[in-house]
């Protein structure tokens, strides 16, 4: 149980795909122009990541180390294509909004990364937990970047949420800054890099503070140097 908690914590925070490993930046920068897009892309990735992790962990003993990469690529690519076709056929309205992102998931290196670093060495349940928590960590980071860019860029939050999640989610759409003229920089690609950089810096500061506090707690008397 403790181990699964650790895996979850790693996925959500310690080894967060975007904020700690800084991988999968290409799809991340491309879709985070709004919080809704970030959330949609994150959830679609989570589904693929969890399934591919589970699948690879199930067959891991049969795969020779020498040919593992082509096998992983074949499995992940077919999985994404299957999801793409089935969504197009049976969830067409959702597909019209998410369709572009689904194709982008194939090139998301986080998926191959988790297959290689985790799922190929661990039992299926642990791999599933890892896939879900890594995916949710990615979703959280994407939504956060999207929300910051959307609020700074347009003054709104979760625009067009109903297109993704149905009319029940229409309340998500909020005006944060009324009568805001908009600031295009944040919506355009540079805004993505700026927000990402600030978040990375913020995470470092937060972790440093936590470490210092832990240290101070350990030896009650702070050590003054010099």
């Amino acid at each position, binding site marked *: 149980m403790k181990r699964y908690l650790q895996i979850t914590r790693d996925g959500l925070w310690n080894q967060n795909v975007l904020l700690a490993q800084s991988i999968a930046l290409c799809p991340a920068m491309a879709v985070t*122009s709004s919080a809704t897009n970030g959330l949609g892309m994150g959830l679609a990735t989570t589904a693929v990541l969890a399934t591919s992790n589970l699948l690879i962990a199930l067959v891991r*003993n*049969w*795969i*020779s*180390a*020498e*040919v593992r990469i*082509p*096998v992983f690529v*074949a*499995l992940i*690519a*077919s999985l994404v*294509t*299957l999801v793409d*076709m*089935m969504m*197009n*056929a*049976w969830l*067409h309205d959702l597909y*019209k909004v998410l369709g572009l992102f689904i194709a982008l998931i194939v090139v998301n290196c986080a998926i191959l990364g988790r297959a290689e670093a985790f799922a190929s060495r661990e039992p299926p349940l642990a791999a599933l937990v890892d896939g879900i928590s890594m995916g949710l960590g990615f979703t959280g980071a994407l939504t956060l970047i999207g929300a910051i860019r959307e609020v700074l*860029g*347009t003054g709104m939050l979760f625009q*067009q949420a109903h297109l993704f999640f149905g009319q029940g989610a229409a309340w998500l759409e909020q005006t944060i800054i009324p009568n805001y003229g*908009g600031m*295009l920089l944040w*919506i*355009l690609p540079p805004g993505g890099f700026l927000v990402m950089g600030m978040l990375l810096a913020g995470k470092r500061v937060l972790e440093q503070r936590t470490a210092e506090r832990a240290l101070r707690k350990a030896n009650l008397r702070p050590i003054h140097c010099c």
Partner: protein
Amino acid sequence: MTFDEKLEHWRSLLPYQTGLLAIVGLLTSAALTLANQATQTPIEDSLQKDLQASLAQVLPPNSFDNKLLTSTLERPAPDGKRTVYVARKADQVTGLVFEVAGKGYAGTIRIVMGIDPAGKVLGVRVLSHAETPGLGDKIDAQKSNWIESFAGKGLNNAKWAVKKDGGEFDQFAGATITPRAVVKAVHEGLQWYAQEKENIAKEGAK
């Protein structure tokens, strides 16, 4: 030797690795083939439904009672052939829908426009574009109602240019190229219809 040990030995053998790749390739392509067969018809159906829906957007509601997708004719246009969807109500032609394209700030803007047989605009919608979010994307009906300003305009009762160029259509703050391209494309569509009007009426009467 247990099964696991045997498996470990096999994994290092070249024939095993070749076989593994072959089997993975076979299984994945089989899965994709099956899924393709299962999803092909529903996907085509939904694409047709999408097209029907986007065509219906540029016509007034209840202005036609036929199936637009099967009621088409083709006429030559400057950029090749243009498909015209004919809307009928009680066998009378009530509207014509066709696609035009404009050259926007970032690539082609695909536009679908509906006109009445006299050549007056019934409605215009942008099908796809890659204009700057927040500036040029106001041509999208979901973002602003600018695109409604075409309704009711014809060749003779409107100045076909943006206000900056002496016309009557609004441009957007910070984006003139995009609305200019849309106005030009719709204008050209009307001019093309004026030329083809008689041929279309002849073929559409069938």
